[in-house]
């Protein structure tokens, strides 16, 4: 379980959000949507305890698995060593990771389908590969909460699809409280149970994904008209996607 109670964050005079309350129980996944600069990353940082709250409180495990937006350091370490760092909170000041930590890290890499990255140098991996290593590191913390900061934003379509599948797989295991921020409402449809919309002007609404991801609310969120379109799924079944009105080109 991870969440905020009547929380407010302000930088000097500028209030990013106030009176925000929500919680994500273990077994559910929440997507956070909002326009640029509205405070999505700050909200995650507040949940992690990295951003002091002006008022209110947070409920969170001592350490959460966090996948930052800009993949970590330029550490000249192997993928496995980066994942092992997820065990830091268990090691203590003078601790050294042991074979148990190695095994947990390798298992986390296997879980995200990136076992082959264990021996490769992290700073030489592609953006998509780094993302997988960082997700494995978040899993290796063993925390019941996972927080992803725009996990798909810097990835090509293939890697976006793989990341969403992984997010959905983690969701369906129902053993973590998952939060992720995204700019694409279809990503919320693909991998979330609930959605938090950070509306322009300082209002936040949240609820189940089918109530939140709909043209009227998203139109208000981004200030562009939105509409449903039907697309054919992989097995020819009909699926729905939500797109802004500017998407697509006029058929000739």
């Amino acid at each position, binding site marked *: 379980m991870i969440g905020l109670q009547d929380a407010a964050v302000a930088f000097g005079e500028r209030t990013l959000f106030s009176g925000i309350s929500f919680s994500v129980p273990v077994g559910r996944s929440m997507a956070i949507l909002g326009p640029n600069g509205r405070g999505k990353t700050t909200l995650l940082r507040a949940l992690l305890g990295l951003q002091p709250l002006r008022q209110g409180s947070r409920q969170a495990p001592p350490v959460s698995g966090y996948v930052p937006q800009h993949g970590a350091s330029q550490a*000249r370490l192997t993928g*496995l060593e980066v994942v092992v760092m997820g065990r830091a909170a268990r090691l203590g*000041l*003078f601790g050294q990771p042991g074979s148990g930590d*190695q095994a947990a890290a*390798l298992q986390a890499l296997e879980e995200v389908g990136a*076992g082959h990255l264990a*021996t490769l140098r992290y700073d*030489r991996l592609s953006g998509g590969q780094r993302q997988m290593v960082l997700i494995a590191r978040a899993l290796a913390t063993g925390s019941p909460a996972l927080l992803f900061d725009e996990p798909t934003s810097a990835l090509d379509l293939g890697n976006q699809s793989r990341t969403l599948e992984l997010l959905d797989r983690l969701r369906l295991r129902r053993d973590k409280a998952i939060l992720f921020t995204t700019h694409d409402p279809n990503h919320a449809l693909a991998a979330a149970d609930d959605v938090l919309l950070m509306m322009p002007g300082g209002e936040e609404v949240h609820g189940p994904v089918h109530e939140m991801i709909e043209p009227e609310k998203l139109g208000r969120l981004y200030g562009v008209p939105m509409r449903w379109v039907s697309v054919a799924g992989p097995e020819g079944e009909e699926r729905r996607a939500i797109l802004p009105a500017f998407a697509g080109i006029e058929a000739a």
Partner: protein
Amino acid sequence: MRAALALGRRLTVPGLRFGTWGVLTALMVAAMLFSIGAGRFSVTVPRVAEILSAAALDPHAAITQMDERIVLLVRLPRVLLAALSGAALAVGGAALQGVFRNPLVSPQVLGISQGAAFGGALAILFGFGGTVLLGLAFVFGLSALVLVGFLARINGRTEVITVILSGMVIGALFAALVSVIQFVADPNTSLPAIVYWLMGSFSTATWGRLALAVPGMGLGLVAIWFLRYRLNLLALEEQEARSLGVNPDRERWYVFIAISLMTGTSVAVAGIVGWIGLVVPHAARILVGEDHRQLIPASALLGAAYLTFVDTLARTLTAAEIPLGVLTALIGAPVFGYLLRRHFREANRA
């Protein structure tokens, strides 16, 4: 899965690559044996080994022969002091570079060296040496660090960049204070003493001086050794480290205190010996990589070998001793330049 596990274990067990460790240890031992033998009164390496093993077997035997006196009373404490200082300075540099995520920082960046130099100069000005000099060097080295800590703490948080800037401020302050002492010092007696001491030398090494140096340097080395995995975590971005449950604000200071212990002690017993903390960790990174679990011991062995070797040059190249700080800079600057180019060539290729 099991094969992958075994692979993972083999990959990251600390202490891998026995070959590298064997070579580094052999290098250090060879440098020390050679150094004990070399000098105006030269002793062959087998004879050095013979004298050392005889003394080790019977520490209370009377020292009668000339070569025994030179090896056991003059050169052995000097070589041990040089090796210990080399290890301490190199490890301090490696740890500091990790914490600051910047390969160009050294203990001088935090103002510790300048603070310690002021303490030592103050002691010499009032005609003190030995314990008082060491005590003052250590106290002022640590005060410089504490001042940096106060200056750098803004809104209850300490950022890396404010620490570096505060270190520059405090370092400049203590450098100015050293100049003040040199200005008021007696040009016939204390001024040359201060100037030569600041240039750095192990020429005054005795068993007593070694005993003074061992606690500070030993404690610092042991502390950094225990913190070696933590250094990997402290080398991450601040926010990222905190999200992993590390407290970089506090834990950095443990590293700083260990480093100021080692730096203050080394300034006290040998003056300012620059460049070791820059050159050696870079060479060690090329050999074993950036994981501090390997980088710290490699820096220690290489630093001990390197400073022992340079100190041997300092006392054997010419009839008079060349100041150690001059030699480490003369060798260090071009070597460091080469290592830097190599480092960035590699980084760009990656």
